[in-house]
């Protein structure tokens, strides 16, 4: 690992911090334009964050340290994922711990933190949101594990950088049944994990239909800003992860040059913007699933991930 790769890792963190609200804003803008509205502009989430950071911090009575710390834990775990996962360059300083299980564990840590915060408020909506969120998480975590595991079978390593470099060397790998099934499963998982349609509507104001929003109803001011920011960062990181797992062109290597790092930044930006726009455009046409149908969808994605694992084990193409 060279100095430049450390710089690249730092850039990953800073970049995700800076760009995440823009990604969310971009998605909202795409949706608005497709629905025939003018929209608030790509920078609107930044303006909202600035507004909330300037507000007074209010904490509901009866909440404990859990409520206070949850936004920080959420943001911290997401930033750690951003540092680990190969976004701009492979070979980050944290590479030895950059394996599948670590990343999934960190994701789950963030989810659990917010869920406990929702319970901590003691309100009905908070508890409802938390129970729904953990039901979804219970089905989503095994699916992520299985899907990325399916991708790791050809390279015989669960290290994310190894998987990405393996796919970069051998692009035909993406077109195997195992990879394709894993892709579909991961897309469904990202939608569920980030709380987008059809699992959860991020713009709803009806509390009884909320999942993610219900947990954070009691947050206000800077803590709310942190929660929103962290959610945007999670979405961005997961989109970048999918983009690099399946379309790894442009990513800088383990010992990158300045030019490679710059290329990596541009490449990942383009890919994330494209994926986010696709996601937003898809959301325009889909209605939210009724809550009792969501476990069906997630069980289906679990099945697809399982099929991906079996397919990549048994349908291994003849070695080149």
């Amino acid at each position, binding site marked *: 690992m060279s100095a430049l790769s450390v710089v690249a890792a730092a850039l990953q963190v800073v970049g995700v911090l800076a760009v995440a609200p823009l990604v969310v804003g971009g998605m909202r803008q795409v949706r608005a334009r497709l629905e025939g509205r003018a929209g608030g502009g790509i920078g609107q989430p930044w303006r909202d964050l600035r507004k909330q950071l300037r507000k007074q911090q209010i904490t509901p009575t009866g909440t404990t340290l859990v409520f206070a710390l949850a936004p920080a834990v959420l943001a911290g775990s997401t930033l750690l994922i951003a540092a680990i996962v190969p976004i701009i360059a492979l070979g980050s300083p944290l590479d030895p711990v950059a394996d599948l299980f670590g990343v999934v564990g960190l994701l789950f840590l963030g989810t659990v933190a917010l869920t406990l915060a929702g319970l901590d408020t003691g309100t009905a909506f908070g508890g409802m949101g938390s129970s729904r969120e953990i039901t979804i998480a219970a089905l989503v975590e095994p699916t992520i594990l299985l899907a990325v595991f399916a991708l790791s079978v050809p390279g015989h390593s669960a290290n994310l950088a190894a998987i990405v470099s393996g796919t970069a060397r051998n692009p035909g790998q993406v077109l195997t*049944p195992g990879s*394709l099934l894993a892709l579909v499963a991961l897309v469904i998982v990202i939608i569920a994990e980030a709380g987008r349609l059809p699992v959860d509507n991020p713009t709803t104001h009806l509390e009884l239909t909320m999942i993610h929003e219900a947990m954070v109803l009691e947050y206000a001011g800077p803590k709310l800003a942190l929660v929103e920011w962290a959610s945007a960062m999670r979405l961005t990181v997961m989109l970048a992860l999918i983009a690099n797992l399946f379309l790894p062109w442009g990513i800088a290597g383990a010992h990158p040059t300045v030019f490679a790092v710059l290329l990596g930044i541009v490449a990942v930006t383009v890919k994330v913007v494209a994926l986010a726009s696709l996601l937003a455009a898809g959301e325009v046409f889909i209605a939210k699933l009724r809550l009792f149908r969501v476990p069906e969808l997630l069980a289906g994605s679990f*099945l*697809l991930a399982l*099929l991906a694992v*079996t*397919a990549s084990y*048994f349908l291994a193409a003849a070695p080149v």
Partner: protein
Amino acid sequence: MTQTTYAGLLDLAAGAFLLTAVLIVWRRELRAIVRLLAWQGMALAAIPLVEGIYQGDRAIVTVGVIVLVLKALVLPILLGRVVGTEDQERRESTPLVNTTASLLITAGLTVMAYAVTRPIIALDPTEATRAVPAAFAVILIAVFVMVSRRRALSQAVGFLMLDNGIAATGFLITAGVPLIVELGASLDALFAVLVLGVLTGRMRRAFGDTDLDQLRELRD
């Protein structure tokens, strides 16, 4: 066609074949599963077509074309016509096993298929036989679909899926059985579907709708 391309295409076809079977378990509307059956027929026909083109064997390609016409066009159109005569009964009434449990059972059946077909792969480890577990999984899934559905037409779709799975197994392990047997088998499938279609019509006239739970007069 290089060998890796051949293996890749074959795996894609087998994977798509299995995926359509999973989606048939997932979806409940009759129109949707008949459409998925047509896609499955296309994935099935791709197997002998790919094999025929790779091996340069015209007979296998002909069989592939026949299968394509029969299983991706004729049979789904026939079934679609029968579905079309049911208006409000488009949606399957709650199947006997709910969707989430069905999907998890399907996962178990897939793993079982891989276990059961090990001796076949061991006897002849080519690219084609390595895809047999997918076809076998479709057979097991088809039996499960026939057992767990309530509508007559869903059972018919399950039966056609069983037939597709067995045909896929045949194509993968031996590049098809002799032409005469394949023709006979296809004709029998066609006749079976015609019979089931006519029976569904009669059932609707006699019972009012085609819910199989109504067939319980004969018992001991």
